[in-house]
């Protein structure tokens, strides 16, 4: 399917906070209670509509364990948006946010939109991190904040789509240089004036892309 823009996202955060489950809920609209752990980097994609434009989100889901950072770091560059996820039932995953944020800011382009996500909001009885704490952290560091549940799907669409809206607004404001792919934004094939082979390319990707990408 053709698209006006492609945005690259990266999902980061401690191991076991539900990064892969958020992605699966967003791309496949289902929840897998026992999800395989992510070794290295996984990949997902979905089309959304903003301002009646088709936008393809290409999402890189990373392993949360410390050791994998040497691998996952290289994916910050070239990402327009990041979902930084913690688990509201495990305080330590919240405590590590500063490290994640430092890492992200250091290795990404400065305009990357970061959305802070407190996941597992369905587990209210086991909550260790108050919603207000998440809000305060986000305010302090200039992030957008949301609590989500990959299990019930609460706020999952919103998290991914609101991030895209922020990126889209930045494009409108001219903050992002959309001709530089290192910013994690690509103009869709039919929108690019410089590529003469377009109609064919669009057609073939449309027929093969299927539901996945």
């Amino acid at each position: 399917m053709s698209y006006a823009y492609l945005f690259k996202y990266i999902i980061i955060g401690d191991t076991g906070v539900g990064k892969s489950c958020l992605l699966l809920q967003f791309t496949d609209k289902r929840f897998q209670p026992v999800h395989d752990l992510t070794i290295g980097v996984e990949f997902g994609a979905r089309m959304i509509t903003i301002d009646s434009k088709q936008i393809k989100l290409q999402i890189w889901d990373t392993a949360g364990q410390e050791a994998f950072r040497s691998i996952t770091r290289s994916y910050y560059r070239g990402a327009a948006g990041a979902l930084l996820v913690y688990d509201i039932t495990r305080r330590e995953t919240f405590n590590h946010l500063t490290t994640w944020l430092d890492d992200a800011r250091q290795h990404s382009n400065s305009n990357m939109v970061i959305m802070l996500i407190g996941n597992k909001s369905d587990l209210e009885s086991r909550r260790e991190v108050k919603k207000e704490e998440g809000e305060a952290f986000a305010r302090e560091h200039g992030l957008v904040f949301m609590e989500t549940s990959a299990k019930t799907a609460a706020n999952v669409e919103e998290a991914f789509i609101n991030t895209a809206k922020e990126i889209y607004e930045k494009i409108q404001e001219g903050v992002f240089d959309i001709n530089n792919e290192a910013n994690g934004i690509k103009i869709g094939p039919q929108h690019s004036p410089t590529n003469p082979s377009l109609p064919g390319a669009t057609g073939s990707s449309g027929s093969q892309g299927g539901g996945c990408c």
Partner: protein
Amino acid sequence: MAQTMYSKIDEYGFERPANFDYEVHAEFMGKYMHILVRRAQRWSTLKGKNKFTRSSKLKRFIRKGIPLDFRASVWLQVSGAQKLKEDSVWNYSDLKKKITNPSLIDIIKIDLPRTFPDNINFIGQEQLTGQMFNVLAAFAHQNSEVGYCQGLNYITGMLLLATRNEEASFWLLKVLVEKILPKYSVTNMSGLLIDLDVLDDLVRKLDVDIHKHIHKIGMPWAMVTTKWFICLFTEVLPTETVFRIWDCIFYEGSKIIFRVGLTLIKLHKAEILRTKELSELITCFKEMRNHKDIIDCHQFMIHIFQIPGRITDSDLKNLRTKYSKAQNQR
């Protein structure tokens, strides 16, 4: 094993994937059963106290597959794990009593239910789950440089399935991580970063068209091959194929990983070159396990010693030195 041919659970307890091709599998098993019987007979002719001592004959035997009954003892013997155990000043059961570090215990426990949820031996409180915890925690306790690194859970799970012996699994894990494999599981995965560059180099030498195409699409090798190195093809290839590969890794070392990787890539040349964008290319790599020549693990193991050509230990050592210098300069 014959009756499991049509079961939804394979002979190691894994649920077969939804897209599992029973027809291809049945056809392969028809042939493979005969091979297994013949190999078992041949192995039973190995006699004497030193029957599993390293030799060119044993190496040849191992490349053709170790029968399940012999696997644990052969792996222990040829890998040096047995010697490691005999030379050790502490023993495994004492080590287990020292597992007290709460953060280590927590981090391993998070991963237990996430390891092989599709295997009947690891669901809930099944025996192997507890054994996996013991092995991982004991290992982490005695090796603080590695501690617990994700990926070791899969390796340990597979070791338990193959050996059905907790202590043997511990020593095999130790010999793999500390002697056989480069530094894949240490804090910064330096060995993995180097080997990804080595793989890129070897692919370019093997087939320049494939190499060009992968670079044109812009797929980093880490995306699709991290599991090759970190999990030694667990969760990547069919279980029987994985064990056949491990037979050779325990004898011949980590160069086998490259032989397997290069063979997978070369066997899929047409499919790889047909891909037009990143997501298609990634899908192509993910679906390699369904290839007829890979399900037929016996044929696949013949391929891995032919298709990539000659790769010697010293070639590999030189390449690793070269790319380790390059890494340091980055």
